[in-house]
């Protein structure tokens, strides 16, 4: 079956531009996560949705970062007025239910480079 897909795979932005990153989770998966992965590091949590509800956004680094999942399926991570420190790979993951101890399935990520 289809896995988690993300688009675009690569994005180059000039400092100050706004970007939007899309995530299509596995069909029917309730939970959706966004992570940020810097070069040579493990993924770091940004935000978490259960259906359309954003239950945790404690990992968003600033108010320039905004995520939504209006219909409980596709999610968009938006970064306003991008800065060079925003350059990273943004990973999306989904899991079937909203419970603990669930496997999270990752997408290939969007590699963002801010010049």
């Amino acid at each position, binding site marked *: 079956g289809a*896995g*988690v897909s993300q688009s675009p795979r690569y994005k180059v932005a000039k400092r100050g531009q706004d970007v939007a990153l899309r995530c299509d989770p596995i069909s029917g998966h309730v*939970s959706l*996560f966004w992570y940020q992965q810097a070069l*040579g*590091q*493990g*993924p*770091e*949590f940004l935000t*978490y949705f259960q259906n359309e509800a954003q*239950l*945790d956004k404690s*990992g968003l680094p600033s108010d320039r970062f905004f995520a939504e999942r209006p219909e409980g399926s596709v999610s968009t991570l938006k970064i306003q007025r991008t800065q060079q420190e925003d350059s990273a790979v943004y*990973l999306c993951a989904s*899991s079937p239910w*909203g*419970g*603990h*101890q*669930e*496997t*999270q*399935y*990752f*997408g*290939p*990520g969007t*590699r963002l480079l801010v010049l």
Partner: protein
Amino acid sequence: QQPVQSPQAVILREGEDAVINCSSSKALYSVHWYRQKHGEAPVFLMILLKGGEQKGHEKISASFNEKKQQSSLYLTASQLSYSGTYFCGTEGGSGSARQLTFGSGTQLTVLP
């Protein structure tokens, strides 16, 4: 708090064994192991649950010591395809949080 992984890097010959360790300072619901190749998505390997249950997709074994909040991933008779960076992700044992907190990774290289 980020779990601590060791070693940071390991180089093996095909057919050799390796152990990767992951240690947390807090109580855990579960430990998740992933392998990531350069430019690709992290691929799920194994989940170890509080209470002892173990679930995985590949012939790779792991252990979870709940008292010590430590997990180890055992790679036996390594193959070239095992090369990549291994991450442990921990799910905290309190509150409603579902997100994983990842270690900084162990880079595994298998040589022919």
